[in-house]
């Protein structure tokens, strides 16, 4: 079986360094404008958070039936996005998917930054953020302990673990490339890269250890991909609320997370490739592969949507029935249908070769899927809460500018981190790409 070549056919190993390190040169004016824009997002978000902390959570739109608003929507959204990185770098590594090579660095970076943003939201949504450390089980003289029966506590551990492992995986994976940078730059910059290169010299022994460590991390990160989002889903599934209380939530959320993560990779990859001229390294084929992942997960998500409605009808539980009727035809019904079109109908286009090989179309689909997946979390959290058991307490929730401001701040934070990363570190794993090209050209294959 002849191996498919994922890079530009005329790309040779010697060009890789130059191509990947091109963006690390002195930035353009546009870069500074973008950075200023992202910082202004962050500042606005910080102002909103300040207002919320000092005036009370009332400045956000939450109320009695709907005690969780878009803060938790954002949390699940960012955690979901954080999934593709580890999936692409760890699971696909274990499965020896060769196409992951040029996109894994970007996906990993996305994971780390997204999970950073995600981790903020459960804190932001607390009534008393200044006591957030009470969620950690630390020894204290008052014999206060955390409640391990609460899914929120599982969440704390799941997210913190995931953040730690994915960050380590990210740093370890960059070691050889950091050494390249260390050698290329001089002065303080070289010293900083040197710290991340951790004395890498590229000896055979180091390569051996590195490969082993990488494999171990990949093996360690793989179950986390499944566990984190399963636990996030249990925040909902473990409650008694109709629309949340469901056993399919774990696989449903995990596939949804991978779905949204893949969409986000495309959304980020498309402009990045253009701005940094990485067309030779990141080709249409990469987009096609990622879109195929999207298609698979989209089908699983669609199946889950339909199963939920089927169970509501088949289970004859009046609370569940009302909840799902309200989801589709209630006050927030429009968002449900938008979600369904974006997440279940549009991705079906990927079945057609014309579409899955057209980067522009994939880019548009990916953006809509991002919106759709955000709406999915919104629909699940808000519409389920808006009409639950007691009709007296039914209500409506509208996010306020404070909540949107904080979301914007998180988007700014994410993009700022990502832009800085792209400016200061190689966005493509140089060493891996080189190895890959070498294999492709010589026909050598370990697998």
């Amino acid at each position: 079986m002849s191996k498919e070549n994922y890079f530009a056919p005329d790309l040779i190993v010697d060009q890789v360094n130059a191509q990947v390190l091109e963006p690390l040169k002195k930035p353009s004016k546009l870069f500074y404008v973008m950075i200023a824009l992202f910082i202004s997002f962050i500042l606005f978000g910080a102002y909103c958070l300040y207002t919320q902390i000092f005036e009370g959570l009332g400045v956000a739109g939450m109320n009695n039936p709907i005690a969780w608003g878009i803060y938790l929507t954002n949390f699940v959204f960012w955690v979901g996005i954080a999934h593709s990185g580890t999936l692409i770098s760890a699971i696909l590594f274990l499965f020896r998917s060769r196409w992951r090579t040029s996109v894994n660095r970007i996906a990993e970076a996305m994971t780390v930054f997204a999970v950073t943003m995600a981790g903020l939201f459960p804190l932001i949504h607390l009534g008393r953020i200044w006591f957030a450390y009470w969620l950690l089980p630390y020894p204290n003289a008052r014999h206060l302990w955390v409640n391990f029966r609460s899914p929120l506590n599982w969440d704390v551990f799941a997210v913190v673990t995931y953040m730690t492992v994915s960050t380590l995986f990210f740093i370890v994976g960059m070691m050889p490339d950091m050494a390249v940078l260390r050698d290329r730059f001089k002065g303080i910059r070289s010293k900083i890269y040197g710290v991340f290169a951790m004395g890498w010299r590229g000896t055979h022994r180091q390569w051996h250890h590195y490969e082993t460590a990488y494999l171990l991390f990949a093996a360690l990160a793989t179950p986390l991909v499944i566990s984190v989002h399963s636990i996030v889903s249990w925040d909902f599934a473990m409650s008694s609320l109709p629309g949340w209380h469901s056993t399919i939530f774990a696989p449903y959320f995990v596939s949804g997370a991978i779905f949204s993560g893949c969409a986000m990779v495309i959304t980020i990859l498309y402009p990045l490739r253009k701005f940094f001229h990485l067309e030779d390294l990141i080709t249409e084929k990469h987009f096609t592969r990622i879109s195929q992942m999207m298609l698979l997960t989209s089908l699983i998500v669609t199946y889950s949507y339909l199963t939920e409605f089927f169970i509501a009808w088949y289970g004859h539980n009046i609370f569940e029935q009302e909840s799902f009727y309200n989801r589709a035809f209630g006050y927030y019904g429009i968002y449900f249908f938008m979600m369904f079109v974006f997440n279940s109908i549009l991705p079906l286009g990927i079945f057609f070769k014309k579409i899955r090989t057209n980067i522009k179309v994939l880019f548009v689909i990916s953006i809509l899927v991002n919106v759709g997946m955000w709406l999915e979390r919104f629909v699940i959290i808000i519409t389920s809460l808006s009409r639950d058991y007691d009709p007296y307490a039914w209500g409506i929730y509208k996010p306020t500018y404070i909540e949107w401001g904080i979301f914007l701040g998180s988007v700014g934070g994410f993009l700022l981190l990502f832009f800085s990363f792209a400016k200061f570190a190689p966005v493509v794993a140089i060493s891996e790409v080189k190895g890959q090209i070498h294999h492709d050209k010589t026909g050598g294959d370990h697998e």
Partner: protein
Amino acid sequence: MNNLDRRNFLKSLGMLSLAMVPDISRRPIRKLFPLLIPAEEIIPGTPYWYASTCCECPARCGTMLKVREGRVIKIEGNPNHPLSRGGLCPRGQAALQELYNVDRIRFPFKKIDNAPKTKLTWDSAINEIKELIEVGKTLFISGYITSIQKSYIQTWLGGISEAAQLFIYEPALRNSYYEANRIAFGRPDANEYHLENADLIMDFGAEFMETWESPVELSHQYSNARRVRNENIVKLIYVGISESLTGTNADEEYKIHPKTEAVVMLSLANWLLDNSQKSNINDREKSTWRRNLQAFTLQKASEMSGLSIEQLTHLGKQLDQYPNTLILCGDAVAAHEQGTDSIVAANILNYICGSYGNTIALKSGQPLDAVDAPVDFEAVIEEILNDQISNIIFYNTNPFYTYPDKERLRKALKKVPLKIALATTLNDTAAMADYVLPVHHTIETWGVEDLGNEDYSLVQPGMQPVFDSKPVEVVLQSIRKHTRLPNDFEQYIENEWQSIFNEIGGNGSFEKNWKEMLLKGGVWNRTTLQSAQVDASQGAFSFLQNYELPKVSERLTLNAHLSHRYYDGVGANKSWLWELPHQLYHYVWDVPVRVHPNVAREYGLAEGEIVSLSCNNRSIEAPVLITDQIHPKVIAMELGSGHANYGQHAVKETGNPADLLPLNFDRISGDKIFLAENVEIKKTGKRRDLVRLQGSYDQGERKIVQQISLKEVVRLHKQGAVREEPHAPKIYPEHEHEVYDWMMVIDLSLCTGCGACAVACYAENAVPVVGKQGCKHGREMAWLRLEKFEVDGRYRFIPMLCQQCEIAPCETVCPVYATVHSNEGLNIQVYNRCVGTRYCSNNCPYKVRRFNYYPTRWEEPTNLQLNPDIYHRPKGVMEKCTFCVHRLRRAKEEAKMQGRLVKDGEAIPACVQSCPTGAMSFGNLNNPDSRVTKMVNNFRGYHVFEVLNTQPSVLYLKNIKHEDKG
């Protein structure tokens, strides 16, 4: 100073600081009579109770003032009082918010015409008034005041001049009942009702659960009749023009055309003469009755009222079928020109049904409610307009709210040289005065209320005045000293009590009896029904012969009725009452005009649209609420909105429905009319969404409110059926409740949805009021709410509070153990530990948890009302009903001091205490003799959302649906 070592320095510092501690406690009240508890024995942290009388409405229920550290912090019904029997209505409990109102007048001031407000000292205010009051005729306009105060003021006015006049302007109170009794029976007496003896109450617009006569007393009587006795419960049929709490509670409800109730009643009387064996009229008289009633056929009543012949026949058969009937007629239908006629008609129907001496009686003695007829107020205004009045003193009344033609009143008042207002808070009328003098609230002063039948209720102060106010009597006496009145007001009260004591002929010394009276709250012996027979033969016949059919309007009629929450508008400065959702429609902080869907269709109206209503050349604006519970020719609006000047809580955006009322009066009694005929509706194009707290009234198959038929109850009772607790699997180990296992049982059959429990909860637990915006965002903080759901085509109420689940969904999801289970079966919220994830609220199927979205600020002096036993929740924490855990703890501590367990009834939450109908019971399930232990196996018992296996500690008893026999 060399020998000043550290030890001595600290010692002297301590001495010095102690010496410099200001005298923070107010001087103890100079008690008129010896204190029951000497001041030196008052223990901080211990509540003391003073028996007093509620003066919020003319009913005069007995109250107990709960005093902590010298401040009244709660008002509860006096369990020994014949009217309240422990319960108290929402308005009565909210009297605290008048006492501690932010807008309480804090000092005397002067505001002449458009000049700025000038603060005065008491001395200068009195001196200035003294000089001005010398000349001309003085008019004292007051609301309904205690009998002793009335005689004081009259005496005092007599000292000013012969012509000085006291006018009691209380438009909500009706003289029609005396007049009707005079017409029908020749006795101008008040009625005495005994709903507990009835098995059929046919209620023509008498809102006895809300505003009519004595709501707490009558609700209590009704609830007694609603308990199953002799396999029967009372049936309530409501006939009215608009909807109300009483109507909603009725078993059958009919809507008739306005002003036709008399014809309906008389036609029923006529029908009964021919078709019933029951009537207490002998055959000799029957022919006379028949002759006089023959004009009133069912046909005629049907034509006028809009009820079908079948419906009228059904009503007649009902009256025939039940032996003990009672017909009530109230101001929700009869506040029109011929209102007294309607009440006479009700008297006749009661007479024919033989109700007198059974379910209704005439009170002996002088008429109790001696208020001036509003029709005479016209003459007073005329007098003012003719420059005959030079001084006006307003007290405890607000004609600028209730009087329709404000322009006329304003014009009149301009002519008066000196206007003085004695007021607790500034209202529309007091704001017009030149001099405003702060007077004591009834909680701060002494008084005596004559309840009739030689019953006297005591008004006792619970505390020192909050601000620099004085008793009315003292102010009057300082303005112009009357020689016959003692200088010392307290001396006067003592003399009055002495004379009452002599009148009732008490045994033993006055001192001893007085102490008993102070504890008890008054003297009363109201136990027996006045069985004296009445004779309708003469008056009724001439009435019937001269009866003139009312002219009914085919256009829209506005029913501007008394409000359950604001009464005649007086409650509109109290935030608890605005935040208590309307019982039927759950709107807050606004008063809509309620219209029938037909009307809405005709004018193209939608809910929340603002319409302009005009009538009698005056117009107001109000938002629309559409309901099919109202007669299509009637629009209704409760009094309470549209105050020009009534403090920060009053709602000003919506107009005052009293503006539209006509300036004519009840033809016989001169009572105020609450119906405005031929009202025009115009769209304004504006909108103001109503804030309605209940999401839906359709419970579907949720089984929140459950019902059982009377037949079924009787059958199951005979079988000796008991409720079986469903056994469901448990994941976590069961909680142990060794000593106490608290349980609440709520009998939905007795709950009228009056909302007393909800207000009691606000008062007891310092529940924050969030205002209209807060409610709009769904952040109301009420720990207890009254839900209304449809069951079998009728609406029923259910109090919803924390169910204190045994397997609580909130407890498992809290990551920091801020909500845990106690060993007494309570679900405890640990405010200090709460970080505010709000997961508990999401997971609560009953949605009874309340989150503090904003910090609560208690403005001076509202903070003085806060219960010191309560932890005040900061922003960002969850709170909820605690079953008043602090009350339980106090009871446990007291029991522990005596080395025993808490006895049944010693520890009850505020809501249970306040319930006028006794629908709620509370106790220890581990005590075999407690009330709840006896009720917990009642076959009517069920838990809300039993299917979720939360195992609540609140058990509801199914509502009993009345069914006709046969």
